[in-house]
């Protein structure tokens, strides 16, 4: 195989905080179980996403795997979504297992709780990565070889950490200011490392599918599988074209009636029509191709917004105070050995909570608002802080000095 498409899909759902008021603090320690009909009901949202996205996408991918021995892809799936599937939709979890049972679907490593712990507490981060690896082993019988940090948040330190932790590869956004004239369609090596590899998202091609596919105002609409396969072929020297996107792209961000499923079904066939074109998992890409250059990324880059930084999660004071307050409790919470309390604290670390507090372009009602179950970022912040105070309450109840 001369050129491989490395398709990598990310599966995640958070535990959204229910409407939690001042009057709940100190009274009710249930933060995440809203009534089924509420906007913040995790069960309701999960069932909706299962129907619209996970089940039809899994069926489509399984068919592709069964009919095309060459087809393969990679997957990341968080601990919080696995738990929710176990609880509310075990048949969907089974359908994911059928994909990995083919032996041609690789699962990546990440934090169990989809957190930003790497930037706040290294011990906590390592615990969550270990929890995730164990969950993946138990559920899918795999041990992750390639690491992706939450929101693809990456810097040199992360690469160094991942190398020390024994991973063969790590993922990042293929952001132009970092790559300069270079193309994301090759294997790279992170600066200051010896053998770990860096795979960078081709965000233009990835976002053509993930964001622009159903946009009728886009000059390229409608995007067909053969047209996209043609674009994939444009760079004749490329070794690996990294298409990274959310799993929910299929059926949730792009609805069924946009034609996204027939696109997914036909793309691999169109791409493989040409000799030398194939698919690889991320580990296979790393094994097959030598790195062409070193990439130095001292500052943190993510896959979100035009800034490609952490500002969607930590950019305003509400976000910063919330996350600082939360990690400020680490030592006391861990010290209790109370697993229910520790688990609640970990669920609050999920990056989505901070994303809901984002005020960038809030007035435009854009993508941030679309993905939030709260009416405003302020409401998200207040719910979070009321829960935070209940954590304090539980600590104080145990006689721990605040």
């Amino acid at each position, binding site marked *: 195989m001369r050129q491989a498409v490395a398709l990598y899909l990310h599966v995640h759902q958070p535990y959204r905080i229910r409407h939690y*008021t*001042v*009057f709940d*603090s*100190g*009274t009710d320690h249930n933060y995440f179980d809203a009534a089924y009909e509420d906007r913040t009901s995790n069960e309701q949202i999960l069932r909706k996403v299962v129907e619209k996205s996970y089940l039809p996408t899994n069926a489509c991918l399984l068919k592709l795997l069964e009919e095309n021995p060459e087809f393969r892809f990679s997957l990341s799936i968080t601990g919080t979504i696995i738990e929710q599937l176990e609880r509310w939709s075990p048949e969907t979890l089974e359908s994911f297992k059928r994909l990995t049972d083919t032996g041609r679907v690789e699962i990546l490593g990440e934090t169990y709780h989809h957190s930003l712990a790497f930037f706040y507490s290294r011990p906590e981060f390592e615990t969550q990565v270990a929890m995730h690896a164990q969950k993946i082993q138990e559920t899918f019988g795999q041990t992750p070889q390639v690491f992706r940090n939450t929101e693809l948040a990456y810097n040199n330190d992360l690469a160094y950490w991942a190398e020390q932790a024994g991973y063969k590869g790590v993922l990042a956004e293929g952001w132009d200011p970092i790559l300069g004239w270079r193309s994301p369609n090759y294997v790279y090596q992170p600066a200051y490392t010896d053998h770990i590899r860096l795979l960078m998202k081709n965000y233009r091609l990835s976002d053509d599918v993930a964001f622009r596919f159903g946009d009728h105002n886009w000059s390229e609409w409608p995007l067909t599988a053969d047209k996209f396969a043609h674009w994939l072929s444009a760079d004749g020297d490329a070794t690996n074209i990294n298409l990274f996107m959310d799993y929910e792209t299929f059926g949730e961000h792009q609805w069924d009636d946009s034609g996204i499923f027939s696109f997914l079904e036909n793309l691999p066939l169109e791409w493989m029509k040409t000799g030398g074109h194939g698919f690889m998992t991320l580990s296979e890409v790393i094994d097959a191709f030598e790195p062409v250059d070193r990439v130095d990324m001292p500052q943190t880059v993510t896959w979100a917004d035009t800034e490609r930084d952490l500002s969607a999660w930590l950019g*305003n*004071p*509400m976000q*910063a*105070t*919330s996350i600082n*307050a939360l990690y400020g409790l680490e030592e006391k919470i861990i010290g209790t050995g109370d697993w229910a309390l520790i688990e609640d604290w970990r669920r609050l670390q999920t990056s989505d909570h901070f994303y809901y507090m984002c*005020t960038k372009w809030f007035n435009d009602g854009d993508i941030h608002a679309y993905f939030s179950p709260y009416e*405003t970022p*302020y409401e998200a*912040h*207040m719910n979070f*802080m*009321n829960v*935070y*105070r*209940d954590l*304090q*309450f539980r600590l*104080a*109840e145990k006689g721990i000095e*605040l």
Partner: protein
Amino acid sequence: MLGWELPPYNSGGLGVACYQLCKALSGQGVDIEFVLPYLADHEIDFMTITAAHPQDVSQVIRTGIAYDSYKYVLENGDETWLNIHDQQRLYEDAVARLAEEREFDIVHAHDWLTFRAALRLKALRNCPIVLHVHSVESDRAGSQHGNPAVREIEAIALQMADQIVAVSRHTKRAIMRDYGIPSDKIKVVHNSIDASRFAQLDSDNAYRYLSFMKQQGYGVVVNVGRLTIQKGLPNLLRAAQKVVAARPKTLLLIVGSGEQYYELIELAAELGISANVLFTDFQRGKRWRDAFAVGDLFVLPSVSEPFGLTPLEAIGYGTPALISKQSGVSEILNNCLKVDYWDIDEMANQIVGALNSPALRDELWRGSYEEYQHLSWSTAGQKINDIYGKQLTEMAA
């Protein structure tokens, strides 16, 4: 009597003051018909309550504050929004129609929203009009110039009034300053409080977190009110930042809603005190009462407050108060801490001082509760009754 709201459909102190005043007047033999811009059951038996509004308005849903737009739900289920000026015109026309079939000696109107209607009645019937000023536009605009359209109404109406009643000397000064009205045309009748009206607290406070944290050595500072510019809450948050720095175990409870809600939440985050500031949104009943009770100190940081009933309510529920010198209530309340609203350092200093000294708080509360018990609406009612008598005598002469 022309008014804009009565409890339990009030957005703040205006409705409560009207209710209490009318109750006292009624007890002194005054026959009152109170005309409101909406239809609702108030369960009031001491006066007649009339809805001025057109027939097709079956229900008015009061949203936010008295100075917002109003949403009407019509009988057929349609919704319509009227801004405050449309609203005021509607009221004026309806009151004028109503007057054709009514007998009355005197018109007593509360705040600018009803002033045009009062002027219309004066023109139609040549009766004396008493304009009762609970706040002027510069108060509501936080000492800024405010809305010129509102100022125009206030200016003309106050010039035309036979008698003006101001709820404090603070308000009287504002009327003289803003509208050039001579001092002798304005009588100060302070608002008061009716201790017997207070519902009793029960043993279980609704703010369980705060009650618990107080046992852990935390001090609780409370504010209850509309989150609007005249109330000066950004200064209280800035003071709270200094308080928290000096005394980390401090919590600030802010009860209310208003256009500054989100701004204040964001400001608390910017100041790094989100964990110490609790916002509850608008509350009534037990949660409203318990907010006063759970505090160690009530703070009224108003930039410009014509009267300010909430510190008295706090005292009634057992909590001493720190009030801004720019409030009308500071004219009648001595046993409390007082500070200029702009003096954030001093505000922080006094809050920390009070939180750290149970003896000071006890003494403040004991003294202020004594003052509180002597307050009575019947005094205010008597003063208003005297004004009526004087107006009617002048009319006859």
